[in-house]
């Protein structure tokens, strides 16, 4: 790149400063040195040597040389004139530079001109790369990285070289964007020492790093193990067995492992002692775990001797230790309720569920035993946490055990005193005070020993009654706090619909639970509505509110309850949308479809009834200007129009005559009409077969076929239409006719032309006859004459003759035959051609069955087949027919 720049600069100066009058291009001067990479801090001297020819031409010497870096003139103090032709410039202690140094001359004492230039770039030679290290990620190629040292400010190439004792490997050239690392091309071969070093090279020097020699197996970073399972043991509820698969390397190197675990809710990891996992293995049993607790594990591995790198951690896997019998008896208390029966009392025994770390499993039920003084005991098995029994006024002893899959807890024993029992040593100095966001209760213990204390309290609130709560404390304490959740769960919406919202929340952290969360309560309300409360089981973290009102702002909060009370979480607001998802689409799409369908039906209806519609709003008004004399009956005396002015001298039309020609329904269809149908079909079949079957063949090419068809049709049209009609200037049914009340016919029919421009008649005839029309006349005539002269010609043969007519022609013909009430005759030539076609006789007689159709759909087609020679209109319909 640098060299390229230098050459470009030099070339530029050569072109700027040389004379090339029939000679080789020769620069006016040269600068030495050509190489211009300068080390930072060094002195740099350049010498410009003028050519004799330049000196003579421009009358300059080295004294007239001055130097520039870029556009800045170098101070003259740095110059030194060596001799008459050479001048030098010196840059002491050169700084960071990348500039153009030019040698300039001042011609004739006032004109400055650059005669040569070089680009000087300053930089530093590469430093010796340091900290070369390599890593072999399992399954990948070796990658080495290094510290390249100081910035060189020059393009510096780093090459990683590697070799065995017996073999050299290809160099690994660091990419420009990652000059501090390189990944070799060859796969790693383990257990063979390889020597690696880096060479750094730029324009100012080349240096190699220290060589490192290692076995790639000692630089390997294995893939992390994959934990297959975490299994519990029924025999030991404190262990979990971890099994995994790890690197294929374990078949030939010894691995060591690092296993960490934690409970699911904990954030810190526990470490399995490294000495327990210092050899290759595929399973490990972790001990001293809590029963019925979910633990999360992760594992990594590396070479046993510690050479290389630890693998990444495996994906975490979890397992639950097996259950153990409940480790503690539940808290147990009672409440005597008033009873109307004499001699008995209703006692509600109540107890608290054990927290998970004491339940050691799922509590299946509780066993309550009630023993009356000196009497038989009574057993109850209860799934709930309370039991109401009717007791006599005697003293009872109640015991409670919690049972899980493994066994029973120790028994909680509770004495229910006789009804007349009086406590002799009550607790005194009971006081409560808030501290650290909890409510503390403190009391003075009695002198006698106490088995345990029971605290009872309730929340005093205007909104809710006093619901007594209780908690049990050991007999040794005299101060405790009321254990209710310290904070409520933070609820949020997971999904909000038009009439429902899915709420979700996280479980409270253990530290904030202050007990066992019994249930959650969701409170939600609108701005103006009443608050609604919903109780949710404590195991859930999601709930769907239903029957919400759309487009409404809701406020929702949650409270978590333990046996000791509850705590509200922060309030959350959300707004239900106005429309459910997809509702708009569900409305719009059917409406659009219905509209589309209606439109389509309308179009279809109009299409089917177009005749009727057209009859009412756009009846068939023949255009006289498009008339053809060919259609006129030769028996009808021609009407002579000298001019339009003559015809309507006052410029107003007085009447409108719509003329239709009724086909001769008496005439049977000729046989050849069938062949017309076939002809049409064959036209369809031969779509795309343009031109072809000989220029003389009827409709032999597509383009001419169109003309032929059109001509034919136009001829047919005109043959059945009265070409001129009286036109009312005021229009039909309030339609305003054009100002040009009688437009010139496009037809070049002889009569009209001769009437309008008699002098052109001959010319037009000649033109038509000589060029475009005559061949078609011949063609059509030939076709039709075949019908005449060879009536026995096979149907197939006739079909062949028209086989090249494309479908488009046919369709157009058919459409016009069927639907076009207002015939638009085509060019005069066509008309003329038709005049010369006697072959319509071939279609002449026998149009029964089609006559009616022709009558209704258009006069042209009817005439096509029905009145080949007689041009006299047979029927007058709709409006006054003006005999002509």
């Amino acid at each position, binding site marked *: 790149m640098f060299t390229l720049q230098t050459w470009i600069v030099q070339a530029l100066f050569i072109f700027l400063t040389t004379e090339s009058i029939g000679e080789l291009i020769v620069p006016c001067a040269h600068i030495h040195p050509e190489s211009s990479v300068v080390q930072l801090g060094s002195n740099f001297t350049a010498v410009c040597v003028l050519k004799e020819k330049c000196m003579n031409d421009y009358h300059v010497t080295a004294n007239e040389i001055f130097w520039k870096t870029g556009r800045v003139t170098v101070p003259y103090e740095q110059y030194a004139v060596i001799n008459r032709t050479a001048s030098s410039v010196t840059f002491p202690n050169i700084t960071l530079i990348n500039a153009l140094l030019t040698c300039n001359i001042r011609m004739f004492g006032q004109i400055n001109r650059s005669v040569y230039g070089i680009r000087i770039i300053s930089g530093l030679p590469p430093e010796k790369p340091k900290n070369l290290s390599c890593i072999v990620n399992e399954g990948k190629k070796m990658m080495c990285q290094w510290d390249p040292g100081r910035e060189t400010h020059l393009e510096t190439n780093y090459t990683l070289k590697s070799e*065995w004792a*017996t*073999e050299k490997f290809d160099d690994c050239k660091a990419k420009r964007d990652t000059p501090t690392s390189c990944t070799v091309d*060859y*796969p790693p071969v383990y*257990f*063979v020492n390889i020597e690696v070093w880096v060479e750094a090279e730029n324009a100012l020097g080349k240096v190699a790093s220290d060589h490192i020699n290692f*076995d790639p197996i000692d630089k390997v970073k294995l893939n992390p193990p994959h934990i297959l399972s975490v299994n519990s043991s029924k025999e030991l509820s404190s262990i979990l067995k971890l099994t995994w698969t790890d690197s294929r390397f374990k*078949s030939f*190197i010894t691995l060591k492992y690092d296993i960490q675990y934690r409970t699911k809710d904990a954030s810190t990891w526990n470490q399995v002692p490294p000495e327990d996992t210092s050899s290759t293995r595929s399973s490990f049993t972790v001990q001293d775990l809590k029963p019925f607790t979910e633990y999360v594990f992760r594992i990594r591995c590396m070479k046993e001797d510690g050479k290389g790198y630890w693998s990444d951690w495996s994906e975490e896997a979890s397992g639950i230790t097996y259950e153990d019998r409940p480790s503690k008896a539940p808290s147990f208390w009672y409440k005597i309720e008033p009873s109307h029966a004499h001699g008995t009392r209703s006692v509600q025994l109540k107890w608290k569920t054990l927290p998970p770390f004491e339940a050691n499993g799922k509590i299946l039920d509780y066993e309550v035993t009630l023993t009356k003084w000196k009497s038989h005991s009574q057993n109850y098995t209860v799934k709930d946490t309370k039991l109401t029994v009717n007791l006599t006024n005697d003293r009872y002893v109640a015991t409670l055990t919690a049972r899980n899959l493994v066994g029973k807890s120790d028994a909680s024993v509770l004495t229910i005193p006789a009804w007349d029992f009086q406590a002799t040593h009550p607790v005194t100095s009971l006081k409560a005070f808030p501290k650290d966001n909890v409510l503390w209760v403190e009391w003075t213990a009695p002198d006698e020993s106490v088995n345990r204390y029971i605290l009872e309290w309730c929340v005093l609130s205007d909104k809710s009654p006093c619901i007594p709560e209780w908690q049990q404390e050991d007999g040794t304490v005299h101060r405790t706090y009321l254990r209710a959740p310290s904070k409520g769960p933070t609820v949020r919406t997971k999904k909000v619909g038009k009439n429902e919202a899915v709420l979700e929340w996280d479980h409270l952290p253990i530290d904030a639970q202050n007990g066992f969360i019994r249930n959650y309560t969701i409170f939600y309300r609108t701005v103006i509505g009443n608050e609604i409360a919903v109780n949710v089981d404590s195991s859930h973290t999601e709930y769907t509110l239903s029957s919400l009102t759309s487009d409404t702002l809701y406020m929702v909060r949650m409270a978590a309850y333990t046996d000791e009370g509850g705590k509200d979480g922060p309030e959350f607001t959300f707004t239900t949308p106005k429309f459910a998802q997809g509702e708009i689409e569900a409305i719009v799409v059917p409406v659009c479809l219905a509209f589309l369908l209606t439109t389509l039906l309308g179009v279809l209806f109009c299409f089917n009834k177009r005749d009727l519609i057209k009859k009412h709003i756009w009846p068939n008004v023949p255009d006289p200007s498009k008339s053809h004399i060919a259609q006129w009956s030769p028996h009808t005396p021609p009407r002579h129009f000298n001019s339009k002015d003559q015809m309507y001298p006052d410029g107003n039309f007085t009447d409108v005559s719509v003329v239709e020609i009724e086909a001769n329904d008496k005439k049977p269809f000729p046989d050849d009409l069938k062949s017309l149908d076939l002809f049409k079909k064959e036209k369809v079949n031969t779509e795309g077969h343009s031109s072809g079957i000989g220029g003389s063949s009827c409709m032999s090419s597509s383009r001419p076929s169109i003309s032929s068809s059109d001509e034919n049709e136009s001829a047919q049209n005109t043959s059945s239409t009265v070409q001129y009609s009286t036109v009312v200037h005021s229009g039909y049914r309030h339609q305003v006719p054009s100002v040009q009340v009688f437009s010139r016919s496009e037809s070049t029919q002889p009569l009209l032309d001769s009437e309008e421009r008699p002098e052109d008649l001959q010319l037009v005839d000649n033109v038509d006859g000589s060029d475009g029309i005559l061949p078609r006349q011949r063609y059509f005539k030939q076709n039709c004459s075949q019908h005449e002269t060879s009536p026995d010609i096979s149907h197939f043969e006739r079909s062949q003759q028209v086989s090249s007519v494309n479908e488009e022609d046919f369709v157009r013909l058919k459409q016009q035959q069927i639907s076009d009430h207002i015939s638009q005759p085509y060019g005069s030539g066509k008309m003329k051609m038709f005049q010369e076609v006697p072959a319509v006789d071939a279609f002449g007689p026998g149009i029964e069955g089609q006559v009616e159709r022709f009558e209704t759909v258009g006069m042209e087609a009817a005439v096509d087949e029905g009145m080949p020679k007689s041009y006299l209109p047979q029927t007058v319909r709709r409006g006054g027919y003006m005999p002509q």
Partner: protein
Amino acid sequence: MKVLAAGVVPLLLVLHWKPGAGSPLPINPVNATCNTHHPCPSNLMSQIRSQLAQLNGTANALFILYYTAQGEPFPNNLDKLCGPNVTDFPPFQPNGTEKVRLVELYRIVAYLGTALGNITRDQKTLNPTAHSLHSKLNATADTLRGLLSNVLCRLCSKYHVAHVDVAYGPDTSGKDVFQKKKLGCQLLGKYKQVMAVLAQAF
């Protein structure tokens, strides 16, 4: 089966074998000395043992992968088609001195390396989509190459062995498809067998 007995050619080493046993080998002068780019590591024998263990640990999988990739009749006729009946395979005496064992190991590895090159070449043609097999063949060839380098280093540095006569396996380039597959299978069967012996011997 035509075997190129290269014993007539005094060779020091064949580090860069290429597919095709018929290609000429570099001929080192008889008085060639051991020149290595850098000194051999002190744990060279340990490395050789590890390499042999590595090769032995993967030999069976390579053998299975090979005959599975060939399709029938190979998987169901292993005894007939893939028996380790390789003639002219270099001998090995486990009870020899270390020097003798290393020389014999060198011959075996050189032989296997060339044969494996031929198999790899053939398989890329015969089973172009068996990428796993190609990969394992290449990895095995690389490991053999490394083993050869280590053995050379050891012979040079400790025993000053200047040259070892080596023999190459059969050239399969002119064989038909079935013969190529069969020879490859026999060779890999032999490879599996001999690696078990070598891994025990060092």
